[in-house]
Every structure is written in structure tokens, then in C-alpha cells.
């Protein structure tokens, strides 16, 4: 049984194709990560799943209902956490929760009980009567998620819920999401932080320029890069000549230099590390850091697009 089935979804804004013919399926109780750089089309996809915008073509089934014909049934199933802090800043957290709770049809005791429960879940029990204005960035993000839980959704959709917050709040949010999923909630989680997606998600889709360029379980997606490791070297200068030289002696490795970072992709990086360093040592500028990573989503993205995930 699939919670979400996207069939040939396309969304155009004028001449710009924000989402380009994507199809994917998300199982019930899955924790699905949608990864992609800025402008990849993640938010657009999510807005379409949550019935906020209409597709240009294609269809999505959520819990078996089509977004084209059964939007209101779908809205009852989902909880949405928008990319921005979608709250009324001059109201308290509790007032925000109770406003949206009322829209969901909760009243009186049920409403205040639900609000308490959610404040507990997001760890803001004792701060619930303070204005959102006075919250830290991390607290705002937490209550932002809280509002998305007011209707006990079967499907929780989070759009980059950890943008711009401290590590502590971030961990709290990741743990919360993991717990919710363990209690049986299906979750779609978008991010452009591959570490988060790697840590949290069971299945992963990678988007770029409106297209879904890879999808599957974490292992399947990583295998797409041929189990290649990534070598990252920070070196402020690298002449084209040296880069050419490296490429010539190591033809089976993919190389990319930009913004003072040399990225080398390939199997068993350790065996050729010495050769690479020998050449780099003839450069005037020094190596400031060096890092070898196991096959990961970053290398998959680099492998598939030739670009780094984060610009």
C-alpha cells in the first residue's frame, strides 16, 4: 500500500519548468527524503502533494485519493510544515496552535489537551505562553512543526525544517521526526543537507532542475555512484596544467576543481592518495584540509550531475 504515488507530475510557471515529469512511490510508514539543491523543485513538488498548487499535468494519489478530485480528503490526512516559519509572530505558541486547531475542528478541552500534547512533543511545554516573536530560531522551527501535527496526520510533510538553526535544536528536530515515524507516521522530509537525509531516511529521491535523477533505498541510491569514495582537498590554487596532469595519470577518477576545493571521485581512493599529493605539493599554495569519505549522497549527486550538492 502506497501513501503517495506521483505519476508524471509536471509543474510549469510560464516558460520555467519547476517540476519536470517526475514519478515516484512512497510506502506507508516510510521516511522518505527528498534531496536537492536550491531551486531543484522540492517545495513545488511538496506544495502539489499537499494540494496547495495544481499540477500542469500528471496526478498524485495520497492515501488513494487523487489531488485533482479529492483535495479535501487529502487535506485531512496530511500535516504540512512549510519551508518558512508559518506562524503569527505576535501571538503565543499556544494561540497559534489553538487557531489552527480550531480550523481543524477541535474545540474546548480537546483543543487545549492537543495543544499541551504538542508543546510536550516539540519540547516547549513551559514556553507555550510566550510570543513567537521572542523565540529563538530553533524554537520557532520546533513550534512550526508542532502546528503541522495538530490534526494527527497520517502523512507528515516537512520542507527543510532545519534551515538556519543551532545544532542542538536541529538534533531535537531530527529525533522528533524519527520518533514520529517510529510511531507509524509516514514522513516526507526535504532538505539540501545530505547528512540529515542520510541519517533519517529509509528511502531517498534526489532532485535536480525539476527532474528526479535518482531514487530508491539509501543503499540503492548510494550504489548508483558505483560505491565510489570522495576525496575532498581544500587548496586555494590549482593550475589547469596540474589538474590536467592528475586527470591523465588517473583516468578512471572523476575530478572537479572549484571554489578552492578539489573533489576526486572513485574507488579505493587511498591507493592513489600518494600520487595526487605528489602533484599537488608542486603547487605554490598549501593544502589546508583533506578528507576521504565513504560512498555517500554527495558523491552520488556529484557523479550524476558533475556538480556539488551545495554551491
Amino acid at each position, binding site marked *: 500500500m502506497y501513501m503517495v504515488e506521483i505519476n508524471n507530475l509536471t509543474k510549469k510557471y510560464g516558460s520555467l519548468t519547476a517540476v519536470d515529469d517526475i514519478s515516484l512511490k512512497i510506502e506507508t510508514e516510510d521516511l522518505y527524503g527528498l534531496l536537492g539543491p536550491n531551486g531543484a523543485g522540492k517545495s513545488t513538488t511538496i506544495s502539489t502533494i499537499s494540494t*496547495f498548487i*495544481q499540477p500542469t499535468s500528471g496526478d498524485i494519489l495520497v492515501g488513494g485519493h487523487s489531488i485533482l478530485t479529492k483535495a*479535501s480528503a487529502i487535506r485531512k490526512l496530511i500535516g*504540512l510544515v512549510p519551508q518558512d*516559519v*508559518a*506562524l*503569527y509572530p505576535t501571538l503565543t505558541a499556544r494561540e497559534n496552535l489553538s*487557531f*489552527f486547531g480550531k480550523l481543524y475542528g477541535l474545540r474546548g478541552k480537546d483543543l487545549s489537551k492537543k495543544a499541551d500534547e504538542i508543546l510536550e512533543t516539540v519540547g516547549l511545554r513551559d514556553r507555550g505562553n510566550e510570543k513567537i516573536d521572542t523565540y529563538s530560531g530553533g524554537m520557532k522551527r520546533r513550534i512550526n512543526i508542532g502546528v503541522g501535527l495538530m490534526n494527527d496526520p497520517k502523512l507528515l510533510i516537512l520542507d527543510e525544517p532545519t534551515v538556519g538553526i543551532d545544532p542542538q535544536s536541529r538534533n531535537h528536530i531530527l529525533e522528533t521526526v524519527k520518533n514520529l515515524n517510529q510511531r507509524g507516521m509516514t514522513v516526507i522530509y526535504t532538505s539540501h543537507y545530505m547528512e540529515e537525509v542520510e541519517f533519517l531516511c529509509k528511502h531517498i529521491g534526489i532532485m535536480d532542475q525539476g527532474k528526479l535523477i535518482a531514487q530508491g533505498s539509501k543503499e540503492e541510491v548510494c550504489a548508483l555512484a558505483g560505491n565510489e569514495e570522495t576525496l575532498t582537498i581544500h587548496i586555494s590554487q590549482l593550475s589547469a596544467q596540474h589538474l590536467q596532469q592528475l586527470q591523465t595519470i588517473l583516468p578512471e577518477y572523476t575530478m572537479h576543481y572549484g571554489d578552492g576545493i578539489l573533489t576526486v571521485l572513485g574507488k579505493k581512493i587511498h591507493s592513489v592518495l600518494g600520487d595526487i599529493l605528489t602533484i599537488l605539493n608542486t603547487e605554490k599554495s598549501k593544502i589546508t584540509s583533506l578528507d576521504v569519505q565513504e560512498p555517500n549522497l554527495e558523491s552520488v549527486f556529484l557523479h550524476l550531475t558533475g556538480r556539488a550538492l551545495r554551491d
Partner: protein
Amino acid sequence: MHGLFIALNDLKITLKDRKVTTILLLMPILLITVLGSALSSAFTPDTMTDLHQITIAIVEGEAANLNDLERFIPMDQMEEIETSLSDLDINRIVKEEVLQSEDIKSLVSYEVLDHHTALSKLQAKDVAGIVYLPDQFANRYIMGNKSEIKIVTNTDSQIDQMILDAVFRSFSDQLSLPRIAVSVVQEENIKEGVGTFSFSKTGEDIQSLVSDKGISLEFLQKTEAGKQLISSKEYYTSAVAVMFMLFSAGYGLMNMLHDRDHYTLMRQLIAGASKFQMLLGKFLYTLFLCVIQLSILFAYGYIAMGIRLPSDLLAFMILICAASFAMAGLSVLLCGIVKNQRGAVIFQGLIINILSLLGGSFIPIEVMPKIFRPLADLTPNGRASRAFVHLIEGGQWSSISSSVLMLFGFGTLCLLIGVCVFRPAER
């Protein structure tokens, strides 16, 4: 039901916001106070005749040059406008409306002279002062430029100076204050779009408005025979209250834009509020806000300024509802067509100005050029403020029923268009 929750939530946010309540309630209260304070309440006519009478010279300003306006107006209408513009002739207004008014006639007499004669008479102490009226007043006023009335007095008579100052300062205040006040509000709103708001700043602006007030004129409106005269404070209570309702409609729009920009609109939709319910929310918000606003402003006028309330209280209440309904409809229309802050600034800056001018909130309709007068009846604010004045003058339901109908019609039309063109997801 969703619409009601949205409206109450917005209303709660508004009423908690000191800046917004300042603009929607405090500003109009101050304006009504300043504009409505009558000379006659400071000096009763009896005490005035006890004061000595002064004679002044008036040097008339150059008549308005219509060439400047030609670009905007078709040739065949020029002649008509030329006659109408004589209504906005400051020479006429000062001589006939100000210096001929009951209160002032007994205090000041005048003769119209040219500059040189006036100067020699001042030196000979035949006149207490010379008043220079501004050139090109009508043009400048319509284009929103400042005009100045210059007064030259004999330095040795303090009391003459005081009287002249009082008469002309308040007259010029009456012409310019509503404009100034509106610009203050507009600047604040424009600022808000880009930066933060400093409350103390507006506090000072308002204080300077108050401390500037001096003594104001009793500006008697022409009324039909058999009706009671309407006083300036009654006129301005209606005109100002109605003008500030336009700002309330603007806030309906601002709330919608806030909801769009911060994705709370998306949340409302997903929480089950339909497109129609969202608009109903803004409609009810504006409706409630305007009813509260009008009730408070008329109550203030009654309690603090001593204006009369209409004898037909039922008609009065229906009119309050109708005017609020029209504004609520307007705010829905705005929600439908305006999608960003820029549009909101245009509404606050331009549309409110034009509607207020045409509707008679800046200057009484009676002193406006004749061609503009019918337009006042086409603006919801002009129509509403005229209807309030009618009721205060002692008019009955029958005299305002067509206005009430027009206001409900206007509101409904706006509402329908707004509902049709509103697209929550578009940016």
C-alpha cells in the same frame, strides 16, 4: 465557521498591535479634535465683540493658471473647469467663507488692495496687517503642493497679531491637516514594508499635529433650508471617520499579504479553510474593524467634542453597517487583485488619497470644483460621509436610503469580483 475564526484571529492581532491601533483610532481622534475645535468655543461671539475690531488689507493671489493642468484635461472641458476652478479660488474662499463668517465678521474687517497701497497703509497704521494670499492656489492644491499664506503685521500690536495668526493659521490647518495626516500614515506604512517601525516617531508626529493646532475656525457648511446647520466638528467627525475606514480596508489586505508571504495562508488551506472562507475571514475582519472604528469615533465626537448624534438612531446604525460592509467588500477586492507589498503601497499611497480627496475628507465637498462634486457620490467614502452628515443635520431614513443601497451594492460588487479573481497560490 472557518471565516469567522480567521477574522477573529486577525482582529486579535490587530487590536494587540499598538502601531495599528494608533493609526486606526488615535490618529483620527486627534484629527477630529484638531479640525473640529471651533473658534466659537474659545471665544463666544459676545466676548469677541468686546475685543476691539481690526482692519486688515488683503493682497489677492494670482489666479490659478490652468495651463499646467491642460495636459491632463481634454480641451473641450477646459471652459467648464475654468468656471469650476473659481470655487477653489482662495481669494473667494478667504473673503466669502472665512472673513464673512459670523464669528469673524465682528472681529476683522478687510479691504482688498494692491501690494504698494497696502504697504503704505500699514506704515500709516491704517490697517493692522497685510495678508498675502498664495498664487496659483487651485493648481498647487490639486497637485498636492504646499501653498503659503503670508501675513505682515505692525509689530507694536500684540493682540492684533494674535487674532490674525489664530484666524489664518487655523484656516490653513483646516486645508492642509488631513493631507499631512494621511502622508504620515502612508509614510509609516511604506516604511513598514522595508524596515522596522519606531513607535516614538509617530508619537512625535502626532504631538506636533496637536501642538500646532492653535485655534481653529468654525466652518459653517451651506445647508438646505429647514435643516439644522452642521458644525465643522460634525462635518469632520464624519469625514475623518470615513477616511480612516479606508485604512481598515487596507489592513484587511495587509493581513492577506502577510498570510501569503508567511505561508499561513497555505496552512489555512490545508487545515480545511476554502478559498471562499479565507476571503470571508478578511471580509468579516474589515467589517468588524470598521464597525468598532466608527462606533468609537462617533462616540468620541459625541462625548468629547459635543457633536449631535442623529435622531434616527436605527438609520444611523444601518448606515454604520452599510459603510463597513462597503469597506469590507473593498478589502476582499484588494485581496483578490493585489499580490505583493508594492500593490499595497500603491493602494495606501495613491488610491486612498484620491478617494479621500474626491470623497471630501481633505476639503469640504462644497468648496471643491463643481466637476468633482458628482464624483464624491460615486466614492463609497464620499457617499458614506455625506449620508452621516445628512443624518446629523436631522435627515431621516428616506434621505439616506439610496446611499445605504449604494454602499451595500458597492460592497457586494467588490466582494463578487474579489472572490472570482482570488488565487491563493499565485505570487
